[in-house]
């Protein structure tokens, strides 16, 4: 049953909540009898539909943080660009940050619109082998605010997964908003009948970030989402004039390195602050192409390689499991 039905009251508790049909806000809702009967708590058929739809996607990677503004979208976009550098691979980037969709700008796709066809919504192509979907493409003005409560956001995420004509993909990268809430629960729930390779966790060096990131790591453990590794972003700034390094976001509690050691997680890399990254993102260009020899670009390339290696190993393991089961 859909998480979002039509004509719901503003404070709809959600069709799968314990209060479905029973809350005071349900009075007068046309769906009240349906919800109160318990029919809405049956497993969402969309989960199986999405499982079928995405069965031809070889690898799925979630980019998570817990903390805002650490560079999830920047990382997701550049991971997509890097993987799409191999023209034999089909890559897709899905932006599920419903309130603050940054991906269209970072990918240079502002103003693009989504089209419907017989096989569903067509994603927007940056390159022949790199497709993007974001709510940003459904908004008619850069001033439009998406003021939606949880259930409506969940419905949109379901549509993105079920109704977009992704085609056969080698990699689906999912960029997420900060936090551990509706969007995160929904993406894990809706991908529940597919194989998700794992999550890349982004952080900056400070404890203020790490304290939120540890919660995200707990979330991953709770929902049994494997963690591919951690990326420490904004890791020091080298002054272009005097070449001295400043720790603008100080790793006062040991940074991602200590957190990874404590939690036994791989640290995939430490990306330094580089003003050219912000500029590229604002201009919708890939800084991997703009400044390929920069220290940041080199770290990125290493991180991407680690992720590809992880996914290949994960695929081999999946193959082994399937072979043994046969």
């Amino acid at each position, binding site marked *: 049953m859909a998480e979002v039905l039509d004509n719901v009251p503003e*404070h709809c*508790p*959600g069709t799968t*909540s314990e*209060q479905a049909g029973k809350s005071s806000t349900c009075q007068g809702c046309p769906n009240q009898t349906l919800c109160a009967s318990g029919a809405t708590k049956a497993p969402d058929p969309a989960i199986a539909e999405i499982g079928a739809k995405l069965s031809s996607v070889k690898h799925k990677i979630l980019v998570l943080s*817990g*903390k*805002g*503004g650490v560079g999830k*979208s920047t990382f997701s976009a550049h991971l997509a660009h890097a993987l799409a550098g191999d023209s034999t691979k089909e890559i897709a980037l899905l932006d599920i940050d419903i*309130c*603050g969709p*940054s991906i269209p*700008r*970072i990918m240079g796709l502002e103003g693009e619109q989504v089209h419907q066809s017989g096989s569903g919504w067509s994603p927007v192509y940056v390159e022949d082998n790199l497709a993007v979907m974001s709510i940003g493409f459904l908004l008619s003005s*850069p*001033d*439009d*605010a*998406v*003021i*939606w*409560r*949880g259930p409506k956001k969940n419905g949109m995420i379901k549509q993105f997964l079920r109704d977009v004509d992704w085609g056969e993909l080698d990699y689906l990268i999912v960029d997420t*908003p*900060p*936090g*551990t*809430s*509706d969007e*995160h*629960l929904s993406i894990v729930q809706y991908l529940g009948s597919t194989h998700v390779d794992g999550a890349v966790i982004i952080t*900056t060096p*400070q*404890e*203020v970030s790490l*304290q*939120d990131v540890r*919660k*995200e790591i*707990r*979330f991953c453990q*709770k929902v049994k989402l494997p963690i591919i590794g951690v990326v420490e972003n904004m890791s020091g*700034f080298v*002054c*272009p*004039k*005097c070449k*001295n390094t*400043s720790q*603008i976001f*100080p790793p*006062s*509690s040991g940074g991602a390195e200590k957190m990874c050691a404590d939690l036994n997680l791989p640290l995939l890399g430490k990306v330094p*602050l580089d*003003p050219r990254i*912000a*500029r590229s*993102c*604002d201009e919708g260009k890939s800084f991997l192409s703009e400044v390929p020899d920069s220290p940041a670009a080199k770290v990125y390339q290493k991180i991407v390689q680690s992720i590809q290696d992880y996914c290949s190993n994960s695929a081999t393991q999946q193959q082994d499991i399937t072979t043994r089961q046969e």
Partner: protein
Amino acid sequence: MSVQNLEENNGDGNLSQVRHVVLILSGKGGVGKSTITTQLALALTHAGNKVGILDTDLCGPSIPRMLSVGRPDVHQCDSGWVPVYTDSRKNLALMSIGFLLADPDEAVVWRGPKKTALIGQFVSDVAWGELDVLLVDTPPGTSDEHLAILENLKKHRVDGAVLVTTPQAVSTGDVRREITFCKKTGVRVLGVIENMSGFVCPHCSECSNIFSKGGGEELAKLTGSVFLGCVPLDPQLSSSIEEGKDFAELFPDSTTFSAISSISHTILNSLQTT
């Protein structure tokens, strides 16, 4: 602060003696909402005001660490929850979900309706007492938390919102949408702050625009809002935040503090003239 204001707010329960309520919003994550909230609060208390901070970021509550209050027990009194005070002078009162978690690494994995319910309690059931300003720190976005705050403050009044952005277009792009949220919900925009506005190298004084430049001021012009000012990227501010130290007390002569202080005066003046 007139007696008139207090009389208007009577029958408001726990907010009846709170003179002004200001939301700190962004839309974009990681621009420094919590940092700006704490620094404005400290600047206002140093200028003799009684201030409260309500931290409504349930998934990522940053305020307790920034003010070094640890994880004290939260007590109840007849009027509700007693806020946590940063010191014995009780000039700065706080409430955050951070105080209610037994394990600081515990993730609050809640969907919208549960978040809405807790925020309702935070707004109505904290015994703030007499405050000049209550600053409400928010998570990024325009969703359940933001709607819950406004609904629960309907009986009182929201004097306005301060919008925080960094200079880049990727940030101002989200903050534009947050300004639309304010217009749609009738919240007055007190102004826009551009945070992380340039970095001055402590070794050679070269200024680098790490997160680009000028976006905050452009955004203010574009949306017809007041531009409150720029706050630079300052490793001493980052360290103070990290260690929960009072930046205003430690570096009162810094450019950063004078920027924050000036912004806090502008905000207070605009609150007092309404």
